[in-house]
């Protein structure tokens, strides 16, 4: 470049240049990826130290979307905090609502009618599918395949239609509240849901054929960004990222909450390639495994939803607390299995309606922390592959 040298400043030259006697002197370059970059999925900034196309190190910088959710949680009543939870992982707002409601219910000892619990499971699983569809689409986009993105959004649109029918909102629902849900399912919802499931289930196989088993796609993602199970646990990875490493751990099974012990479903995990349609390039814990776990999870969610449709009992849809819901001076920590991992809420009450402290454990926050560890000595194009497979939502990282 004409005036500016390629490194950030002349002073930094000494730091980034390795002068090893007898070895080649390679020039390193600091590269800002984000906060406005197509494949950082929001306002994430990565500072890349590169040597040509090779990325030596990637340091994530976050906080661009910090909206003080926890501080707000200390200032408003628990019911008023529900809309704030919508905005954490905005692609799976139902599960956020559910997690916070469960925490408050546990704290306040609020009972929830069975029908409401079923409705919650329906919404959570639908939202999980919607979120994984976005993940599938944007991952295709990261790999340069534009078309899956629109297919993913097309299917998601139907789910959003269902949500709109149920609660009137398409993104920030505030539907699940402590004690139940805000309103009963509308007429015909279950029929529409069943139709959607019949339509959607074969589509997953279609998308696997289109993208998952595409030769180029496999070449791009298999064996890239491998995370060992030990690393995954040590870094606190949860959700599809953890399962992609081969750890069969899912809160819905391992520490069941809500009604998940009633349903029959599998926990897909990443396995080494070569068996049963899994391409032989695949290593457990690589980007492809993480991606494919999501594809398989959508099938399991469909399975759970079918069971919900069959079992849904009649009855009340909420147990409305009398007057203002006061939180006893106790402390509760509760995690639910969100679309991206375990979403935890630590709620401390002190006898008032306003909690004393709300701490949110965003799964994306923990998952993102591993990028520094994984994005070492990879190619520039692999950064997009790894980041996309970890699938972060910055709303949840920055809170």
């Amino acid at each position, binding site marked *: *470049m*004409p*005036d*500016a*040298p*390629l490194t950030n400043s002349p002073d930094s030259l000494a730091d980034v240049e390795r002068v090893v006697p*007898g*070895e*080649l002197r*390679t*020039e390193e370059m600091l590269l800002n990826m984000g906060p406005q970059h197509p494949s950082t999925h929001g306002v994430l900034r990565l500072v890349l130290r590169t*040597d*040509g*196309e*090779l990325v030596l190190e990637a340091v994530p910088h976050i906080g661009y979307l910090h909206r003080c959710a926890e501080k707000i949680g200390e200032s408003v009543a628990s019911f008023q905090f529900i809309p704030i939870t919508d905005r954490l992982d905005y692609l799976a707002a139902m599960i956020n609502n559910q997690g916070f409601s469960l925490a408050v219910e546990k704290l306040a000892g609020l009972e929830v009618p069975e029908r409401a619990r079923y409705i919650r499971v329906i919404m959570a699983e639908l939202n999980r599918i919607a979120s994984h569809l976005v993940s599938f689409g944007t991952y295709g986009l990261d790999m340069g395949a534009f078309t899956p993105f629109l297919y993913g959004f097309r299917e998601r649109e139907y789910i959003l239609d269902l949500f709109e029918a149920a609660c009137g909102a398409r993104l920030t629902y505030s539907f699940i509240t402590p004690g139940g849900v805000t309103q009963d399912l509308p007429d015909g919802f279950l029929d529409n849901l069943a139709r959607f499931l019949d339509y959607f289930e074969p589509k997953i196989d279609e998308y696997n054929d289109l993208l998952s088993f595409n030769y180029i796609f496999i070449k791009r993602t298999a064996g890239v960004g491998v995370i060992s199970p030990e690393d995954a646990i040590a870094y606190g990875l949860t959700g599809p990222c953890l399962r992609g490493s081969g750890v069969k751990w899912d809160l819905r099974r391992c520490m069941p909450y809500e009604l998940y012990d009633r349903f029959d479903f599998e926990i897909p995990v990443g396995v080494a390639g070569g068996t049963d349609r899994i391409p032989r390039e695949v290593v457990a814990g690589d980007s492809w495994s993480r991606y494919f776990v999501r594809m398989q999870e959508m099938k399991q969610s469909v399975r759970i939803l079918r069971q919900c449709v069959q079992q849904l009992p009649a009855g009340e849809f909420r147990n409305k607390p009398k007057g203002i819901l006061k939180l006893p001076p106790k402390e509760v920590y509760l995690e639910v299995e969100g679309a991206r991992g375990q979403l935890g809420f630590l709620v401390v009450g002190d006898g008032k309606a306003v909690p004393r402290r709300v701490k949110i454990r965003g799964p994306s926050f923990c998952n993102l922390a591993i990028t520094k560890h994984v994005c070492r000595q990879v190619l520039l194009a692999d950064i997009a592959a790894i980041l996309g497979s970890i699938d972060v939502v910055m709303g949840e990282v920055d809170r």
Partner: protein
Amino acid sequence: MYEAIAFYLLAAVVAGSAFGCVIATNIVRMALCLLGTLGGVALLYFLMAANFLGVVQLIVYAGGTLIVIVFGVMLTSRAAGVRLRPKRSEALAGTLICIGLLAGLVTLLVRTAWPAAQSEAQAYDVAWLGNELLSTYLVPFEMVSVLLLAVMIGAAFLAQPSGKDKEPEER
């Protein structure tokens, strides 16, 4: 008439960009000027009915050599921003010598009465050129190919990273 117009246009382009090379202080701009010269010379070859040569000039020179040069500029990128202004004394001496040389050459060229043997351009055919290349000029042709092989090996040897470096090789 057309030939004259075309010649003067092209000569202006060639001479202008060659002069641009002389006065440019930025190495990338020099490369751009070289592109002008190379393209102009290729078109001059066309004008002299040496079509094949013109095309080879475009492919090998403009499309290959020049890109290698620009590549070299960028690989030595930190030096690219450095000003290339020559030392004053050097520049003065160079200018004087070059102007003197040019004046001498031009005088000589203009004064010499070249025997005008060919007024009309021969219709050079590619096939004819190929036949010549593989019959009359076979030995130089083969020597050039051996040279190219040597260059290929030599350049690969020079450019390869030293043995200890395990990083994937980059072009």
